[in-house]
């Protein structure tokens, strides 16, 4: 337990020190939330106020930010610099390393959600209380799915490759995942493709739970599948050192 706590503390301290992690984890979701709920230029599906769509959508975006981008890029560079190799010679062990990584992502997400929910409520959002349980479950599945993808990139690509691919993927999934523009506004071919990717089902689960209207079954199926496949692929393909 001491080793786990020591590793977790390091993960959190180093994470908080990276300006770009703060930007992607909090800066971008906050900007989207505040800007597009104040300036009503985006379509927002079948809800009356933009905030009712945007608030749950940026909660989904926050999950993707911390578990795909932050985790992936951070771990990719740790592998690049031999940090994982060096830890491998210590008594920490893989199990506690993975546990510390997961916990640090969850701690980050709790902070992200606390800030985003507080701001959204200030902007007039009032979600139904019954929606929180499925939304949190969706967030956990999304964390597994995107965390698996992030670690898959980090464990197979060079450090800079992970940086490029994670950021590119982030942008594509942000636009096609219903996180800014509802899926119903996309061309039908693109919307169908997006449902097979992990972002759209995550957004559907969280916006459906917290925005009323309920969650379509396809979203739970697709999200659960990603939550299983991505971590398994990462576990099988991850390489600890970068040579």
């Amino acid at each position, binding site marked *: 337990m001491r080793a786990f706590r*020591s590793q977790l503390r390091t993960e959190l301290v180093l994470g908080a020190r990276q300006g770009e992690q703060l930007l992607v984890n909090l800066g971008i979701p906050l900007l989207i939330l505040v800007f597009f709920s104040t300036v009503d230029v985006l379509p927002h599906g079948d809800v009356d106020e933009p905030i009712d769509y945007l608030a749950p959508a940026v909660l989904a975006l926050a999950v993707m930010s911390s578990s795909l981008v932050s985790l992936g890029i951070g771990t990719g*560079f740790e592998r690049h610099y*031999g940090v994982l*190799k060096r830890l*491998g*010679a210590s*008594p920490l062990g893989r199990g506690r390393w993975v546990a510390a990584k997961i916990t640090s992502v969850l701690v980050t997400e709790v902070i992200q959600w606390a800030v985003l929910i507080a701001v959204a409520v200030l902007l007039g959002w009032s979600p139904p209380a019954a929606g929180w349980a499925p939304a949190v479950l969706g967030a956990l599945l999304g964390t597994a799915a995107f965390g698996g993808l992030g670690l898959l990139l980090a464990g197979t690509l060079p450090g800079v490759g992970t940086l490029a691919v994670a950021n590119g993927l982030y942008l594509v999934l942000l636009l096609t995942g219903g996180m800014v523009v509802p899926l119903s506004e996309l061309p039908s071919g693109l919307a169908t493709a997006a449902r097979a990717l992990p972002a759209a089902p995550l957004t559907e689960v969280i916006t459906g739970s917290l925005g009323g209207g309920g969650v379509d079954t396809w979203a739970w199926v697709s999200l659960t599948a990603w939550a299983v496949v991505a971590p398994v692929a990462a576990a099988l393909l991850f390489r600890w050192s970068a040579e």
Partner: protein
Amino acid sequence: MTTTGSPTTGSGGEAVVVEDLVIRYGELTAVDGVSFTARAGQVTTVLGPNGAGKTSTVEHLEGYRPAAGGRTRVLGLDPITDHRRLSHRVGVMLQDGGIPTAIRPAELLTQYAGFFERPLDPAELLERVGLSHRAGTAFRRLSGGEQRRLSLALAIIGRPDVVFLDEPTAGIDLEGRDAVREVVASLSEDGVAVVMTTHDLDEAERCSDHVVIIDRGTVVAAGSPAELVRPSDSDHILFGAPDELPVDDLAAHLGVPVRRVSRGEFRVETDPSPANVAAVTAWLAERDLPLQDLRAGRQRLDDVFRRLTAHDRGPDAGDPGGPAARRRGRGRRR
């Protein structure tokens, strides 16, 4: 802290035993039948040119690289299959990398201290490697020498019984070099088995109790520095004199071969005893020839090393495992 007599070291204090170790990367055989022993309380240095197989050998003992053949024991355990157990008792200093660029030295040592049962105090350890004044500076802002010293501190924070140091003084400044030597000396005094690699001969000669010279994956010589530089048939007297010196006359007079090795420099192939030196200078005095300089050439480890590792070197000699060779090796490893 001493391991002598501990159940996992041999009767002679053998902490690391390597027998016929073979390591391959695909087609490339990097280590080809290496054997040596490292004892508790001694500094064992694996010396060799770049690409000789030093790092491969050490990385096997650290638990990173499986062997293709041979038998190895670290504290009586298998370095690969017993890696988890050994990780509590083995300290590692990688050749490069291993530390997050944004971390501060005090944070790094506190982090690793949390992994061990009885760690050294991080603040005292920083003092010992001369980094107290840099405790709060990000790793990437430290000089190369400071980074190496921090990496050394990380290797010993868990009070290990065996320490592997891969090129601990590479690219380090003089002050840092002294700090590393002091730490290495105090470790062996405390009964730790220190295994280090270097391509720096001076370093090997000064710090080691036992030197293993590796070249192209095989051991070409082993012994204490004194044993390796023991007087041998290549001992000589080297002197400078006018270039037209009648070499054959001197050789006939002394009864041993004399060679002109370069312009105005001559080498007498004989034991550099005072009597032999006197014979050479007396002969020069009789002919009124000036003596420009004189070296009674006991071999240094340097000479032994060059002789042992000399093989058809091309124009860019001296570094058979240079960047190009390394790239080839890496490519195969992928």
